[in-house]
């Protein structure tokens, strides 16, 4: 589904990603962990197409298409979804109107007609129940006045509504209390299927207690320096990132 080869990117001329390799297949969940500043969020932003990040080398292929050549909306319509670490508040844009427009665009891209108002509301209701997000969205602006937890849950609701092939969760667990974390994780678990995939970016291992990853990668200084199964996450939690750094230094010395 996603092949990343030697991906390099910089911000304001400063290199952040220094050659990332990653392959994600349908039905898989990958966790990317790493200390602050290792490039985790940069990777997510580059994949989503944020123009603040300059790709300086490497490739990224999504379903056989060159991801890096697509503007962000085409990536979204092709089925790539990013749950933002800090979802932006957009006053005046209603949640409903926004979701309706986004869904219609994505469906049109796949050759499907837009849903009728009734179908849309029906689907919204179902998905709200699925992700246990029952805040009233009617007459509210996009993310405006939402608590941190509500914003994250709204991201998961959008994920459910838009049914992407690949979802990237950028530190979705940050700032969530245990209940919200459980709800978000349940949502993701209900949405996982054999034809979709997830990349979960996180600093801590606690989200991974609820969403069991198939693979865990450690990103450090712009490179994936270690990959393994879910046990790697436990090991990291136990020994901390210093352990990785030390073993890394050891291997160079």
């Amino acid at each position, binding site marked *: 589904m996603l092949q990343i080869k030697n991906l390099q990117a910089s911000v304001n001329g400063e290199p952040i990603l220094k050659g990332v390799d990653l392959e994600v297949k349908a039905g898989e969940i990958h966790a990317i962990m790493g200390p602050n500043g290792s490039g985790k969020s940069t990777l997510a932003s580059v994949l*989503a*197409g*944020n*123009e603040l990040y300059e790709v300086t080398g490497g490739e990224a292929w999504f379903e056989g298409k060159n991801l890096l050549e697509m*503007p*962000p*909306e085409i*990536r*979204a*319509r092709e089925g790539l*979804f*990013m749950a*933002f670490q800090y*979802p*932006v508040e*957009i*006053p*005046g*844009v209603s949640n409903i*109107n*926004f979701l309706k*427009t*986004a*869904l219609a*665009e*994505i469906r049109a*891209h796949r050759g499907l007609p837009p849903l009728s108002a009734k179908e849309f509301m029906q689907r919204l209701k179902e998905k709200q129940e699925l992700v246990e997000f029952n805040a009233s969205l009617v007459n509210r*602006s996009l993310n405006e006045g939402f608590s941190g937890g509500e914003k994250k849950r709204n991201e998961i609701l*959008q994920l459910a509504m*838009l049914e992407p092939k690949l979802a990237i969760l950028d530190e979705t667990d940050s700032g969530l209390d245990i209940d919200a974390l459980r709800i978000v994780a349940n949502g993701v678990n209900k949405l996982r299927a054999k034809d979709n995939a997830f990349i979960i970016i996180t600093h801590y291992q606690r989200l991974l207690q609820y969403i069991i990853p198939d693979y865990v990668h450690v990103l450090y200084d712009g490179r994936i320096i270690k990959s393994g199964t879910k046990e790697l996450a436990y090991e990291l939690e136990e020994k901390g990132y210093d352990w990785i750094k030390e073993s890394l230094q050891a291997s160079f010395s």
Partner: protein
Amino acid sequence: MSKSIFNSFYQYLIEQYEAFQANLQGTLPWPDALLKHKQQAFELFKKQGFPSTKQEDWKYTNLAGPLQQIFHLSAGNETADLQTALKAASIKDVQACRIVLLNGRLQRAYSDPLPEGVHFLEGAEALHHYYAEEYFASLADPTGIPLVALNTAFVPAFNLLHIQKTTDRPLHIMHFYASHQASFLPERLLLVTEEQVQTQIIDTFHQLTTEPILINYVVEQYLKEQVAMDIFLINALQPNATFFHHSETYLHSQSTYHHLNFSFPGADFIRNNINARLQGSASEANLWGLYVGGGHQLVDNHTIVDHQQPGCNSNEWYKGILQDKSTGVFNGKIFVEKGAQKTNAFQKNNAILLSREATVHAKPQLEIFADDVKCSHGSTVGQMNEEALFYLRTRGLSELTARQLLIEAFAFDILSKIPHKAVAHHVMELLRQHLHLESSIPIDA
């Protein structure tokens, strides 16, 4: 450098005045009490001329350009196919009582019957009404306001709208303008609402000519106690129009006044003075505005909220969207006079520039002479939020759709103040029609 402009149009007006007055005396003689105002206003105009950018209130609005040609005084005999025009100008689904004016004169045949308790007087009837002597030129004082002086001196007659009873549907005043040459079209309304009346008025403006016209529309409004009045001013005039509007409103105790001011690309030059004087305690004035600039247009909104009595509230919010080579000017004054304690006065203005060549000048201004007050103003100039744009695009919206959505969201704060669904819909349509977002793709770093 002179603080005034004395150009050929000025010369023309000065030379024509005597003949104009003589003609007026023959056709529609003004009572002495009112004539006195007219003559004083003429003397003022003669002395002051048109304001130049040396005057603080005209700092960014240069009249030398729009007034470089001569706009002729109208003979008052223009005709037009109002039947067709009316159809095009009506607002869909608005059940309003239409009052049709051509060059400021009532066209009774095309107007709807007025609701009970509403009187629209013109000509001699208006001139000799008891409210005329009381309020004409005393609400909108020509001293110091050159364009009011100009109007007072040259308006051939004025209309008087007297509302004695609450209206069950909006009054839609449709201003049509026709002319076969470049014309100066002064127009004036005196509006008095009696105690406890609730009413809504829609003002729209329509050109039936491609000749250059200079519209000078002055409104004097007097709201007695416990009145609630909403005004929706919608300006979608076409190129070749220069529009000067001055609206002066006095509020008495416990009155509420909402003024919503919308303007769109078209008219080359728009200057609105929207003033509200809170003369009675516990009254409230709200001024909302949305201006969309396009082409070479200049849109200038000057507002005054004058708190003269204690316990009054005011809210003001103007938002501007500047495209192409347009220029936006916003000047909002809040006065809190001595003794006007327990005042709450808030003002906001936001503008976004969508083009390299667009310009905005904002001058919010507070002048406060009482201490127990809560006043604030906020002003921002910016552009579309790139972060929000990116977010919307990651959800599959095209850049154009995302821009459209964000602009509409920006406008929503003002659009949402319109209590009438059909009017709101009409304004939204105008907004969509006048936005050309494809030309507002961002600028490289």
